[in-house]
């Protein structure tokens, strides 16, 4: 992640557009990420809301697994529904930069719809998005895979996709 501070800052601007830079400030002997919001003093990241720390950990997690895989449980936790499409785009951008495949779980329809909205438009780069819905069939758990067209149709038809 060395030298990628701007990338992390840009990702966090999805939630906090005032964020100008990030810095590590040691408080009581503990390093804490702070952000410059242009308010005259650095603000600790946790004080900017749960969504900021959530997105920070997602992006840093991706950055720390180059050419690898990142597993995210309940990806929407701590994130307001209105920022979810932008968060998905930030995740996609980080995944592209670090060549990472992201597996994210969710029970949230809003989160799925947001992912579809985010990936159904041109991101400026190739993004291979699939939704795998787990279903119990005859006692076995099977994955039903939605490509972009299947997910679009299912959402437009108002069908359950979880």
């Amino acid at each position, binding site marked *: 992640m060395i030298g990628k501070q701007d990338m992390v800052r840009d990702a966090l601007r999805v939630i906090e557009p005032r964020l100008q830079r990030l810095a590590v400030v040691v408080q009581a002997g503990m390093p804490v990420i702070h952000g410059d919001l242009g308010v005259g003093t650095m603000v600790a990241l946790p004080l900017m809301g749960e969504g900021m720390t959530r997105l920070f950990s997602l992006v840093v997690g991706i950055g720390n697994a180059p050419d690898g895989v990142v597993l995210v449980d309940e990806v929407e936790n701590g994130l307001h529904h209105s920022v979810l499409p932008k968060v998905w785009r930030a995740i996609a951008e980080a995944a592209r930069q670090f060549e990472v495949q992201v597996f994210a779980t969710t029970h949230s329809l*809003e989160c799925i719809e947001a992912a579809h909205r985010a990936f159904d438009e041109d991101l400026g780069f190739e993004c291979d998005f699939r939704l795998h819905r787990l279903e119990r069939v005859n006692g076995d758990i099977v994955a039903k*895979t*939605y490509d972009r067209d299947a997910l679009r*149709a299912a959402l*437009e038809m108002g*069908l359950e996709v979880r």
Partner: protein
Amino acid sequence: MAKRPVIEQHSILIVEGVDEQGVFGALLRHLGISDVQVVPTGGKTSLADGLHGLKVSPGFDSVTAIGVVRDADADPEAAFRSVCGALSREGLPVPAAPLVPHGGPPKVTVLILPSGTRPGALEDLCLDAVADDPAFPCVSAYFACLHDAGVDGPHNLSRARMQVFLASRQQAGKRLGEAASYLPWNAPAFDEVRRFVQSVRGHSPINQI
């Protein structure tokens, strides 16, 4: 947030829009059939895309019978071919002709409206069914009057005629799908549709009727 529907029945009818959903829902209620589910693909989604999305939807693996309903529009044969193409792309059984069930499970039957041999749509079938209603001559007279007055007719005459007919009912102003309870389900025009629905349910193979 409203609960999204899942496939809950072993037999499903895939229809185009909310009017078809209302009409076939009303027919099923008239026939006392509660174990056939009507699934509209909606106005924006084509049948091909709708099937693509349906195939991975919750409950689809339990479906044993599928009825596909589609308007003939200008060309009933082309409409049938289009349905067959969509079925084939999803690896579903492809019937040889409308109303001929094929394969299974899921068994697939296709109904082209108003029939497999003439152009038109759901509204044309419904107009056939209400042709003996006392209000029907008034509907025809209304459009004749418009013509005589030099008023350009509506683009979709069948839909307009159906709307005018429905305007003659006690609760006027409803769309066809909402006013389907006014349709005379025992009219001969609905014979084929009734047999189709019962075939999809699995009671009586339609090719033996």
